[in-house]
C-alpha cells in the first residue's frame, strides 16, 4: 500500500501530501506521523498540501486531527502550500480549519515554526 513520505528537517518533520488522498492513506499517515514525532523528538510538523487538488471535510478533519495529536506530543503543526482554488472552495464550504496554522510555502512555514518554537521556548514556564 502507498504511504505518505515523511522527511526530517532538523527538529521538524515535513509531510508532503500527494494528490488523491483516500481514507485509508489518511489513517496510515496519522499512525506514521505520531510514531515518527515520538521517535525523532520532533518539535514541529510541516504538512505540504500544495499538490492536493481539493480539501473536503474529511481531509480538513484529518489535518485538524494531526495538529491536535501533534500538540499533545509537544509538536507544532503548520499546513503549507494550499492552492487558491482549494482555499476558495473551503471558504464556500464553510470550513475554516480552526486551530491550524498556515503558511504560503515550506520556507514561510519553517520560519513560522521557528518563531512559534522560540516563543514557547522562552516562556515555557507559562505553559
Amino acid at each position: 500500500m502507498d504511504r505518505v513520505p515523511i522527511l526530517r528537517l532538523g527538529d521538524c518533520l515535513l509531510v508532503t501530501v500527494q494528490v488523491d488522498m483516500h481514507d485509508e492513506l489518511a489513517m496510515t499517515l496519522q499512525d506514521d506521523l505520531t510514531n515518527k514525532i515520538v521517535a525523532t523528538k520532533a518539535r514541529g510538523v510541516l504538512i505540504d498540501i500544495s499538490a492536493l487538488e481539493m480539501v473536503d471535510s474529511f481531509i480538513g478533519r484529518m489535518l485538524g486531527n494531526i495538529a491536535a495529536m501533534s500538540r499533545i506530543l509537544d509538536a507544532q503543526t503548520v499546513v503549507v502550500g494550499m492552492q487558491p482554488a482549494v482555499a476558495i472552495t473551503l471558504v464556500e464550504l464553510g470550513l475554516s480549519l480552526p486551530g491550524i496554522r498556515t503558511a504560503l510555502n515550506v520556507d514561510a512555514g519553517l520560519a513560522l515554526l521557528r518563531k512559534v518554537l522560540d516563543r514557547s521556548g522562552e516562556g515555557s514556564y507559562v505553559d
Partner: protein
Amino acid sequence: MSIEPTTLPVRSGEDVVRVRQAVRTLAMDLGFSLVDQTKVITAASELARNTLTYGGGGEVRIERLNDGPKRAGVRLTFEDRGPGISNIDLALTDGFTTGNGLGLGLNGARKLSHEFDIWSQPGVGTRVTITRWK
C-alpha cells in the same frame, strides 16, 4: 472519457478517488475554470464519502449537461440502499454528523452546487442529485 453518462461504483476509499477523477475530467472537458472544477469535485467527494459511510456504499451517475450552446454543466446522482435519513432538515444542518466527518458533507455539497435535490426514505435508501453549471 466522453462516454457520458457514466455510472461508477462507490464502495471503497479508492472509489471515492476515482469518482473525483472522473468528475474532474468531465469538468475540464466542459471548460470549467479551476475554481469551479475544484468546487464540483469537492462536492462530489463529500457526497461520495456520505454514500460510502452512511449509505454502506452505492453508485454515482455522472452526466454532462448541455442546456443551450453556452450553458454546460455537470450533474451527479449518488444513490444507495442504506438506512436512509429520517430527518433531512437536521442532516442538512452544518455541524450535524453521525460519522467521522466535520458534519459538513451534505450541506457543504449543497453550498458548492447550483441545484440540489435529496430523496430519502428510512430503510430504503438515499438519492442526492447535484448540478453545477459552468
